[in-house]
């Protein structure tokens, strides 16, 4: 990450923020604190849907909760129970607020649909290079726009 906090990049709508443009996966609007990982995430067996935490051994986010976070990650891996595990997070109230990811798979598409949260992929720049955990992120699923402000909202 070479951009310092507050740097104005192309086409900013607000000073101090960064805008990424991608493709709508699931529409809707959400904003919240980013939780970023460079590791792909397993659903069934990789998360505890009752608590909304990552449980996979050796995962960068092991023990961390994605509840109410904007989850920024490369994509899904592992069991075909991905969508069902994340679907249960919607039921238990531990789901993330939105998904921002790079690699489209059937697991992640179906999971995003049944969680009924905004999701965006296919960005003009790599969100993993731009967004850091703790950044305040808004996700406009319908327009495929993700806006990042450094650090938590004041």
């Amino acid at each position, binding site marked *: 990450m070479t951009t310092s906090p507050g740097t104005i990049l192309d086409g900013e709508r607000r000073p101090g923020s960064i805008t990424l443009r991608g*493709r709508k996966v699931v529409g809707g609007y959400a904003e919240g604190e980013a939780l970023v990982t460079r590791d*792909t995430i397993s659903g069934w*067996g990789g998360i505890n849907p009752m608590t909304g935490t990552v449980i996979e*051994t050796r995962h960068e986010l092991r023990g961390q909760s994605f509840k109410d976070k904007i989850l920024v990650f490369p*994509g899904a*891996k*592992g069991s075909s129970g991905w969508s069902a595990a994340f679907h249960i997070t919607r039921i*238990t109230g531990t789901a993330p607020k939105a998904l921002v990811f790079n690699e489209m798979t059937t697991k992640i598409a179906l999971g995003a*649909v049944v969680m009924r949260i905004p999701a965006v992929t296919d960005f003009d720049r790599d969100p993993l290079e731009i967004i850091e955990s703790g950044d305040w992120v808004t996700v406009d699923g319908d327009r495929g726009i993700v806006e990042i402000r450094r650090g938590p909202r004041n």
Partner: protein
Amino acid sequence: MRLTEAEEAMLDGREGKAKQKAMDLLVRYGEALGAERFVDTTNVTGVPAYYSPVLLDYYKVAPDDAYEVIYSRFDLDSDEVVEVPRMVVNSCGLQGGVDAEGWKTLGKSYEALRMSERSEAASAARGVRILKTCTPYLAGNVPKLGEHCAWMESSAVVYCNSVLGARTNTEGRESTSAAMLTGKIPDWGFHRDEFRFATHHIQVEVNVESVMDWGMLGYFIGAAVGERIPVVTGRFSRPDLIHHKHFGAAAASSGGVEMYHLEGVTPEAPSLRQALGSKAPAAVIPYGKAEQRRTYDELNARATDPNVDFVMLGCPHAALEQLREIAGLLDGRRISGNCRLWVFTSRAIKAEADVSGYTAVIRAAGGAVLTDTCSSIAQAVPPGTRVVALDSAKQTHYLPAIMGIQAWFGTTAECIDAALTGRWNGRRP
């Protein structure tokens, strides 16, 4: 998405509410993927309306009345509860969390058994074949070359695409339940020719022969290529069904591999060039002694205590030949009093093992042959288990994280030796 007239009719509700809700979900899913149309699928495997306490609790419904509530609200992601008609295509039920016969061994409650039986009976009444296995291809559902399938279970998906040359993405519970009612699935990914070519070339520079060797190679490749498609060349012996089963399951656990090519072996890889679709691979990755050892060490990283109190075999569900091998390795001896041995398989294969006498041999040794589930899915290990021995890279990937126990990984023979002695004596390759 562009829909045919028949698909529009389902989406409009002209074919009934259940098909309408199923099409609505499939259209949302297809649009999320960026698919433009559906394909007709003739072969669906899933876990329709699988009951779990969290769902029964959330929907505030008793097991007797739960099928249509869970099918509608969870499987079809519908806010309205609809009547669920008969399935329209070949539909099979995969593994669940309880063994209908061995539920007490697994430590499951009678309520859990009843829940599973109610769900199963309601599915069977709608035409679902109750295979209860992660290996449908060993239990009577073998798709044809090129057949469009909608399968769950990552180890079965990778087998379906790679070994059988049939076509499926890794579907989920919701998409398979919707496909059972409509015979439709988004035309995306592995249904399309251009998606099936290899992207990464793995050069095997060490001998790969045993089930353990193939498991390690798969585990290495999954971690190396993620969701991409590997083509493997080099020093491997011609794999049998069991080698494919363990290789694919491992690659689908450490990564998201849904299809692989083995040069000169799998149906879409008569040559390296054809597997790659005449394109250059994104990467050429060597697998030699160093990589094999690193993979072995990673799989064994969570074990320090050589005292083994549990041995679990049959991930993916054991083939008949594996039950024969286990019975042979036990050789009339009894397992250690400090250790338990559970072998998981499908009902179909267990019926064969019963008549072949293998089940009796394993039982006489103090072990159990269980069906319908596994320790990870059932979240069941013998009481007090601290250290497990496994011959499956996939189970080694999941079980320690799910149950908070140590796991040793090795050959089937090393696992049986651990069951007999209560000690791990696995050898690093």
